[in-house]
């Protein structure tokens, strides 16, 4: 498969973005973005600051609304109806750079809130699920602490568990390790690698190239709101075709 073909993954894709355009006022943040993400596929999205990576993944769960084009998640086309937004959000987990745990709730409460309120799962069952996922991100012993009592890496792992508790079909990560002290990056990446191994569909905005090499099926390079290149990680890192991708990789590698 030629490396620049917008690869249509096998089977019916989980996420399909077609000709998506996003504007912030007069600023054209996404330009005719086409992207389809297969079930179980792991995508790493990279590109210079301001290229629209966050905007792209935030459109998938409608934290941002688009001007034109279409986004379909697991067969549900996002329109303005709150029903479609609800349906999509409950299937899409998101992890933010700044964790965004609810500071007035314990770790456990953070994890049980949405399953109880959105899915109507009884408290005992939500708690059992939460403990299972907290176990999985190896943080179960902190279940009764408040977020402020945890380190950044621990908080981010709780954030991952919180999203998993909704049993989403896809997980979106927006620079999940950028706000972390270097010594905590690994524990979060390891958690993400584990998640990938278990077959989760993932779209990750990250500049952790080691992670991309290890996990990604496809690396997508964006600049100025456009997808300029996409390829498997080996090809992308060895021989990026677009000059902007080359200079971007040069900068990234210089920093690592």
């Amino acid at each position: 498969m030629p490396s620049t073909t917008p690869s249509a993954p096998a089977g019916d894709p989980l996420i399909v973005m077609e000709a998506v355009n996003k504007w912030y006022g007069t600023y054209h943040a996404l330009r005719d973005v086409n992207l389809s993400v297969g079930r179980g596929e792991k995508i790493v999205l990279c590109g210079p600051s301001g290229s629209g990576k966050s905007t792209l993944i935030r459109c998938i769960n409608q934290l941002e609304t688009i001007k034109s084009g279409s986004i379909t998640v697991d067969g549900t086309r996002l329109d303005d109806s709150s029903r479609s937004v609800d349906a999509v959000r409950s299937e899409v987990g998101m992890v933010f750079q700044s964790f965004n745990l609810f500071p007035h709730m314990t770790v456990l409460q953070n994890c049980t809130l949405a399953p109880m309120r959105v899915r109507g799962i009884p408290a005992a069952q939500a708690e059992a699920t939460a403990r299972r996922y907290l176990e999985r991100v190896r943080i179960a012993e902190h279940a009764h602490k408040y977020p402020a009592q945890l380190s950044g890496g621990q908080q981010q792992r709780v954030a991952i568990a919180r999203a998993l508790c909704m049993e989403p079909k896809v997980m979106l990560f927006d620079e999940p390790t950028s706000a972390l002290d270097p010594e905590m990056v690994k524990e979060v990446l390891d958690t993400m690698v584990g998640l990938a191994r278990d077959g989760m569909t993932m779209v990750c905005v990250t500049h952790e190239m080691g992670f991309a090499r290890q996990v990604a099926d496809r690396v997508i390079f964006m600049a100025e709101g456009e997808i300029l290149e996409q390829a498997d990680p080996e090809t992308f890192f060895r021989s990026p075709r677009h000059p902007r991708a080359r200079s971007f990789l040069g900068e990234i590698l210089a920093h690592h």
Partner: protein
Amino acid sequence: MGNSFGLGELGFLIQGLKWTVLLAVIAFIGGGIGGLGVALARTSTSWGLRRITAGYIAVFQGTPLLMQLFVIYYGLGLVGLTLPAWLAVAIAFTLHASAFLGEIWRGAIEALPKGQFEAAKALGLHYVPRMRDVILPQALRIALPATIGFLVQLIKGTSLAAIVGFIELARAGQIVSNQTYAPLLVFTVVGAIYFALCWPLSLYGTHIENRISRTAR
């Protein structure tokens, strides 16, 4: 001839105090409910709701409480609504408190990090659980010192109800003072009662404020 200031007079002041407290409590409960509505409307996505409540707040913050009392007290009469004085006064104070508490709480809601709203949305939480479980508990906590500060103002503000003939603590003091010819003594007692009511609240507000700024660090 006047009486001297004795137990009977003190009892009369206590009667007035009862009304003062009752009025403040009604205004605070009414204002709490109304203020919540105002704060939610001010932070809603509906342009119309935001404009209407902004106008409402502007009017009540931009005019003296005394005028608000007059207009509502006599205004209700003009439109043929003859309500008992205490009820008219309670309505006026509730509207007043709703505007101020609404504005305090709007500020607190907007002061929360955007990420809190986004994380709640991303989890699929709808408006009601999002506000009730995630946003408001945090916002009200931030707003607690200012809320208590307003409650103190409100308690003192109830003395204005005397103007429309309502016998609360300040008015009761005036009456007793006229009867006993001992204004200094009477108003010292009245002042001490207000102080005993407001000072602990102020202290509590400061305490909370310190605790919040400590944990924020």
